[in-house]
């Protein structure tokens, strides 16, 4: 069965969809992988930045702590100088301990950020704190050993102040650097985060697109399977139909046989002069001939006119095909018209065989038909039957005296076709014309 244009369109759409899906899938999958990679990278970088910022922050705190420790130490020293009470040395000792811990912590942190620069920064701080502590130790030792005047002179000499200032300046500088690094670290982390969100958004969109593409493919595949199943069912139905048609044809032929047998057997004991049995058998046989060309067609089917007429005239055939000529346009008729046409042709042929052209060897029958435009936009079939070179008829003009059952049936059959039948007997031989409208479509 040829597919309609709608089916063809659907088929090509399916092919187009299937073809365009592959690169879409591939592209989406690649995009997903790239995005995932990018997101992972971003998160790692962000974590890194935050980590560093945190360390810088810790370093700031440590530096701050170192400053506080140094101040405590100075306070202890001043107190001891003023009061000469050993109780003021406790905070001083304590500060010393705290300093060494703080320095240790600072060293670790600084070297973690940047081994070289960190070591240098630490070395600076250590040097300056040691220098200051040296001065403090010295003044305290002087007080301890009783040289109070010398201790005061040392304090007034601004050496302590200078060293403290130097330490403070260096610490301030380093704190400034650390603060800046910390801020830029956090900034970088924030940048990464702001990049992350749109990436995740795109990833989400890509996943949705992939899911949609998956659904579409699944649906088109389901539709293709359904259509394939449908086609298979149709094919099966077609095959079954053809089988049924053949069976039907077989049965019809068998029925004709049986009917003919009944007629024959029933007529066996008839009087020899009765021709009725012969007539009956002849007509039935003609009908079976007429229908033999419409093998297995359904009620709505069409059959071609030409083969029907040829088949009906076959009993009168000669070797060269000159005796009976059949010609006309290729016309298809509904199956219901086969019986009346068959009966008409049989009557004409039988008459020709009894009295007309077919009763002599030289006789000729010319059967032609055409299709013309008739009334009401319908097409009209016009069939002519012309006998020639037959025996001279006893009656040269006018109809024969007997209008038997055969002629009645012919006229009625023509009426069944919705048309007319006329017969003439010109000198050359019988001439008949059958006209009837062809159904639309």
């Amino acid at each position, binding site marked *: 069965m040829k597919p309609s244009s709608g089916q063809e369109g659907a088929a090509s759409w399916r092919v187009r969809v299937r073809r365009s899906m592959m690169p879409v899938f591939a592209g989406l999958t690649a995009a997903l992988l790239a995005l995932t990679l990018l997101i992972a990278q971003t998160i790692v970088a962000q974590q890194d930045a935050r980590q560093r910022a945190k360390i810088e922050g810790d370093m700031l705190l440590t530096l701050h702590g170192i400053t506080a420790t140094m101040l405590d130490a100075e306070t202890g020293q001043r107190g001891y100088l003023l009061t000469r009470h050993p109780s003021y040395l406790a905070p001083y000792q304590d500060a010393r301990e705290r300093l060494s811990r703080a320095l240790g912590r600072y060293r670790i942190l600084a070297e973690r950020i940047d081994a070289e620069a960190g070591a240098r920064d630490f070395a600076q701080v250590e040097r300056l704190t040691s220098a200051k502590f040296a001065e403090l130790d010295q003044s305290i030792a002087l007080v301890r050993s009783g040289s109070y005047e010398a201790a005061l002179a040392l304090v007034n000499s601004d050496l302590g102040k200078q060293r403290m200032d130097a330490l403070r300046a260096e610490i301030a500088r380093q704190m400034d650097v650390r603060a800046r690094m910390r801020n830029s670290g956090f900034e970088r982390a924030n940048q990464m985060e702001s990049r992350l969100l749109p990436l995740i958004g795109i990833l989400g969109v890509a996943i949705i697109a992939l899911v949609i593409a998956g659904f579409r493919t699944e649906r088109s595949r389901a539709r293709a399977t359904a259509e394939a199943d449908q086609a298979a069912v149709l094919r099966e139905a077609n095959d079954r139909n053809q089988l049924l048609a053949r069976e039907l044809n077989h049965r019809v032929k068998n029925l004709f046989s049986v009917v003919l047998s009944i007629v024959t057997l029933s007529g066996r004991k008839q009087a020899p002069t009765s*021709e009725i049995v*012969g007539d009956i058998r002849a007509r039935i*046989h003609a009908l079976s001939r007429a229908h033999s060309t419409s093998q297995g067609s359904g009620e709505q089917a069409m059959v071609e006119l030409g083969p029907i007429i*040829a088949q009906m005239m076959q009993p009168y055939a000669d*070797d060269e095909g000159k005796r009976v000529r059949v010609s006309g346009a290729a016309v298809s008729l509904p199956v219901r018209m086969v019986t009346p046409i068959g009966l008409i042709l049989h009557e004409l042929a039988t008459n020709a065989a009894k009295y007309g052209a077919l009763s002599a060897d030289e006789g000729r029958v010319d059967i032609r038909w055409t299709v013309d435009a008739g009334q009401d936009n319908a097409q009209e079939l016009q069939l002519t039957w012309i006998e020639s070179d037959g025996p001279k008829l006893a009656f040269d003009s006018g109809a024969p005296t007997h209008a038997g059952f055969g002629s009645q049936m012919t006229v009625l059959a023509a009426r069944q076709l919705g048309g007319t039948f006329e017969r003439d007997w010109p000198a050359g031989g019988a001439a008949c014309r059958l006209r009837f409208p062809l159904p639309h479509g």
Partner: protein
Amino acid sequence: MNTTFHYPVKLGNRDGGPAGWLASSGKGPAYGSHSVQAGGTPHERLLGKRVLIVEDEALLALELQLAFEDEGAEVLGPALSLMKALETVTHEREIDVAVLDVDLAGEDVYPIAELLLQRGVPFIFHTAHGSRNVLSGLFPGALTCTKPTLPDTLIGHLMRLAR
């Protein structure tokens, strides 16, 4: 649409084999009563021939039997089934010609045709099916007549074929 086609009406176009008897009479098929008459002058086209009829439709088988007997034939059977036909073919030594219906109530007649072929007995296939191709494939050269065929036509063929 109005191109004219010619449909030849020639002998040998349809219904297997040259119908020599038609040409000679020129008057078309003889539906006439002579083949139907009882007690009339018997024709002798099959005189003394032993004709086997294999046909599952009883009425048709009877019609053929009477028609052949009218022509002086001795009818073997008619066998109405494949089984019956096998029996008849096995028991009867002398068969001159046979008419075989192809479809015997659902069974094919081919085993009978094979047997007859082996014994050199000529036969005609008589079938309602249009499946000449199958038959000519299995039994090339065998004559096939489509139902309904007039007994007269069959007699004409049998006359030529019979041993």
